[in-house]
């Protein structure tokens, strides 16, 4: 029985093409891999190779024929000893059916982990230390706990950190586990991801997140997506950490908030703590997490002090916001350094009789929708605060959540207080104008309270 060779498609969208040239004739013997014809579309040329062994029993279309439909027969092959006149009447095989429409998936806004349990109220011993020391203690404790944890980055070892966050780590853990890298963000970010694929738990410090743009392909395409693309085989337990957001007087290339950039990416977890206790507890959780975690710190917060749990088993859950100040009249959500500015604004508002609730988001992906919506149901008003730019920012997402989860409880449109929509200027006065301050937050709160 002769075998039909059909018109191939050059791409999934191709429906027909031209048989530009025959390279075999009736009676020729062909083997798998032999080029038998060339086909063309307006975009491309392709060679058709034989897959089966056989003798050409007949050409179903002449050379130069145009408009030949994909999957229609172009040639007949017969086996050794088969009669040449057994070629059937040319009959196009049934075309490949269009794929059925995809079944409706479960509606789901965000592919994320289920909400973790609330953190346990810590009643143990605490110590008053800086955010900087809290971060260092988190790394040190996790390195003592797990041999596969190591720290890598520019100036993290001998210099003890450009911002002294890794102070003392080299002395305790040695150069195998505390690695100075060359200035090579793309390279060491990729190396870290590969090491995580290989079973280690790297903590990769970016001197600031501004420089992580050199490495963002490895963070997004390699770290975040490989688990999915491998059908769940390739976990990537890695932490990328370092200061994020505006520093002071360093101008546009060194002052930018990347929160919304990373929060956009499925496959990443994004954390940005404010207090020293959360800096420690969340970094410990991030290091233990089996997923890639973007850990956004803030240079101006490094010297801020707070009471920090000393118990090495105490951690803070990812995915839970924290109410920093309870209030009745308006909800103010913020993260990182803007929590301090929001608290300052709340104090000012209190003097005017407006009782603001201030929420520290702490985790930006997955966002704690439940805590945000619960607060709106109480206050009926919300102001979002961030240092980053307004367009497609974290505040945009907060506004969407307010609408999706608490629309009926809103008594005013959501207000956003953001960094101005300009590159960060150097001049002191312009820089101050570009960043949110307590006065602007208070003004937004008054506006949503119609006060």
């Amino acid at each position, binding site marked *: 029985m002769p075998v039909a060779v059909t018109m191939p498609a050059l791409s999934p969208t191709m429906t027909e093409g031209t048989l530009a040239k025959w390279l075999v004739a009736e009676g020729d013997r062909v083997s798998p891999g032999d080029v038998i014809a060339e086909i063309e579309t307006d975009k491309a040329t392709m060679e058709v190779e034989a897959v089966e062994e056989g003798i050409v029993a007949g050409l179903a279309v002449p050379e130069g024929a145009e408009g030949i439909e994909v999957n229609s027969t172009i040639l007949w092959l017969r086996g050794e000893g088969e009669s040449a006149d057994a070629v059937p009447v040319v009959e196009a095989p049934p075309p490949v059916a269009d794929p059925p429409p995809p079944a409706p998936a479960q509606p789901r806004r965000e592919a994320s982990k289920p909400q973790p349990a609330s953190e346990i109220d810590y009643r143990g011993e605490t110590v008053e230390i800086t955010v900087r020391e809290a971060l260092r203690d988190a790394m040190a404790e996790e390195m003592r706990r797990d041999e596969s944890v190591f720290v890598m980055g520019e100036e993290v070892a001998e210099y003890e950190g450009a911002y002294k966050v890794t102070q003392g780590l080299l002395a305790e853990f040695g150069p195998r586990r505390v690695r100075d890298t060359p200035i*090579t963000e*793309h390279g060491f970010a990729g190396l870290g991801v590969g090491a995580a694929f290989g079973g280690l738990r790297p903590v990769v410090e970016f001197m600031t997140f501004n420089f992580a743009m050199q490495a963002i392909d490895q963070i997004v395409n390699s770290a975040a997506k490989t688990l999915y693309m*491998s059908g769940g085989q390739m976990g990537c337990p890695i932490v990328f950490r370092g200061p994020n957001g505006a520093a002071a007087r360093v101008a546009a290339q060194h002052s930018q908030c990347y929160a919304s950039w990373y929060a956009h990416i499925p*496959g990443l977890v994004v954390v940005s703590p404010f207090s020293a206790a959360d800096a420690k507890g969340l970094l410990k*959780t991030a290091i233990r997490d089996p997923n890639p975690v973007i850990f956004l710190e803030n240079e101006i917060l490094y010297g801020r002090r707070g009471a920090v749990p000393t118990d090495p088993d105490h951690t803070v859950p990812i995915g839970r916001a924290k109410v920093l100040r309870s209030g009745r009249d308006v909800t103010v959500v913020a993260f990182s350094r803007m929590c301090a500015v929001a608290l300052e604004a709340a104090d000012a508002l209190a003097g005017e009789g407006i009782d603001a609730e201030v929420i520290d988001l702490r985790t930006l992906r997955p966002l704690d929708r439940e805590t945000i919506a619960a607060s709106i149901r109480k206050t009926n008003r919300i102001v979002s605060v961030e240092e980053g730019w307004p367009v497609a920012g974290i505040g945009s997402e907060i506004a969407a959540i307010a609408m999706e989860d608490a629309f009926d409880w809103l008594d005013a449109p959501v207000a956003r207080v953001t960094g101005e929509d300009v590159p960060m200027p150097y001049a002191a006065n312009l820089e101050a104008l570009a960043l949110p301050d307590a006065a602007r937050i208070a003004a937004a709160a008054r506006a949503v309270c119609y006060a």
Partner: protein
Amino acid sequence: MSRQSSKKRGGASAKGNGRAAANGAASDSGRLLRWYRDMLLIRRFEERAGQMYGMGLIGGFCHLYIGQEAVVVGIQACLGERDSVITGYRDHGHMLAAGMEARGVMAELTGREGGYSRGKGGSMHMFSREKNFFGGHGIVAAQVPLGVGLGFSHRYKGEDGVSVVYFGDGAANQGQVYESLNLAALWELPVLFVIENNKYGMGTSVSRAAAGSGLHARGGGFGIPGRLVDGMDVRAVYEAAGEAVAEVRGGRPAILEMETYRYRGHSMSDPAKYRTREEVNQMRRDRDPIERLRHVLESEGHADADALKAIDGEIREIVADAAQFAEQSPEPDPSELYTDVLLEA
């Protein structure tokens, strides 16, 4: 953590260690036949993949490895279970050579549940932890720092595994390759960089893309030895890789540049205007790695025509079975859309 630096000359023309002679003719025949079989499996698998693409069963990008088979087969023959492999998007051959099942690879190409990534990766993104195959990466050269990281993990854990990192002549011009060479040399990581120079990065010939005196020499500034190898001769690949792997296992990176050739287009839709048919035909006629080995097998008496025909038949069955499996395996369940985004903590 000082390490004795190897005194061996990297890259140069040091002869093989007499492995073939010592192992005797019988095992040599077995090995050559195995290589023939492995190369033929890749060739036939890729031909079938091309055909299935033409039938609309495979979508998107599909980069075939036809013509380059000797590279992965020769190198894989020098690796052990503890070694890891990573490559770019022309990866089907690497997976078959690493021992991954033809069924699972083909079913991933068709985007089905039975694929290695359960249909969520496709041609360019497949992995097997079991076989230490770490992908399958779609961004040109992104696998290079990842592979150095695998080498780092071998060293960190105190294992003597080697990380083999494949990339093409096109990738060889990416900046992250040089960041990777620097890190691998600086930290003395066990990484073998294999540059598969198939002469064209998509439609741009090497001479139009790469300055300097050869890709194998590009580690020179980092002190990484490099060697140019006939990548169309599986025995030459095996010999060069044997030396290089031994050196890398000893604790320093090395580069092998494989001169090879892809017969098919860059991907499935390729206008092929950048090279002549004569060039392609000449390569196929004079340097085809499978035909060359077939000639060796027959002329040196390692196998007769019947033995080779039996291998052909076996391969044909494996590929037909894989194709059937890939067509019959169901599409992934819609619930798969939301799985594997994050792992549970």
